[in-house]
């Protein structure tokens, strides 16, 4: 390497802006994706990303929060946080009625939810790293979880599993570990903030795997 190109390399390293990592949050409906996105955004910007609700498919459009600077142990990481609608194989209008929505509202929500699922799948190609969120109180071995992880693996996108809702007594991390032994799993409670430090450390490690 010539002296000039070596100097050019040092110069560009000194002045280049930090690359922004696109961090996607994926999972089935009601796993706590938006609660997690809100927690991350609030921890570093003081602002939230979106509304949360116990009624499934509250997030029906991809929501982003750009240029969040995460700082850990003197290191800095800039992320574009992308909260995606829950992926499902079925969307039952009747479920929304049972949850207390009026017919017109339920119909609108069902239509928007179907579009949200399609949008979430389309966005897979745009991600640099992904947090696959699972509800630790539920059976993790579902086809939706398998499909999400399979698609991320096929696209070579570094992924870690976030086992959410560990503040709930019946949460079972062992079940998730048994179902997906090849993945790193970080148990957290996005609601209470438990273990978020561990998650941030894991995100720093995950980003190192980006090609």
């Amino acid at each position, binding site marked *: 390497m010539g002296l000039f190109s070596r100097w050019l390399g040092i110069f560009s390293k000194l002045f280049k802006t930090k690359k922004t990592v696109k961090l996607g949050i994926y999972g089935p409906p009601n796993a706590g994706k938006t609660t997690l996105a809100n927690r991350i955004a609030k921890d570093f910007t003081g602002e939230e990303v979106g509304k949360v609700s116990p009624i499934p498919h509250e997030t029906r459009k991809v929501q982003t929060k750009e240029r969040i600077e995460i700082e850990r142990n003197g290191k800095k990481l800039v992320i574009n946080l992308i909260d995606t609608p829950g992926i499902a194989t*079925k*969307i039952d209008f009747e479920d929304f009625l049972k949850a207390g929505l009026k017919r017109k509202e339920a119909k609108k929500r069902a239509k928007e939810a179907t579009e949200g*699922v399609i949008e979430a799948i389309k966005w897979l190609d745009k991600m640099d790293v992904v947090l696959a969120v699972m509800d630790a109180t539920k059976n993790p*071995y579902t086809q939706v979880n398998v*499909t999400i992880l*399979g698609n991320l693996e096929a696209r070579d996108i570094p992924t870690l599993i976030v086992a959410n809702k560990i503040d709930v007594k019946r949460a079972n991390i062992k079940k998730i570990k048994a179902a997906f032994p090849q993945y790193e799993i970080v148990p957290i409670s996005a609601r209470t903030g438990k273990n978020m430090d561990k998650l941030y450390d894991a995100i720093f490690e995950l980003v190192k795997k980006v090609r």
Partner: protein
Amino acid sequence: MTTIEYIPFGIIESMDLKKRVKLFVNKAKKDIIVVTDGKLSPEEEANLIEETMKHITKSFPGIEIASLDPDEFKGEGEQFISLLKKKFVELVTGKRYGITIVGPAKIIKEIKKSPDKLSLLMK
């Protein structure tokens, strides 16, 4: 009345992706549960979910799907060896091992996966 149809995976594999995905959705819309002796790829599953979403109505709330790979639940070491064997056979013969069940969510409540079986819970 519930109809269960077995379609050899060879027939499904001979179709292009669009036709393959449409076959499952159209059968589910007619309340038919399809069983096939092969595993869909993650991309095919994602395509199937996307296509299903385009067809959802009040009378067709979507599908239930489950695939089972016979090597999925073996011990880690054993899994690695059989995975290598399987990938080699798949590469040479083009065959994809496993089983896939796709059916209408209107009549299937859930397809439960466990280490050695798939259970269909009907409504």
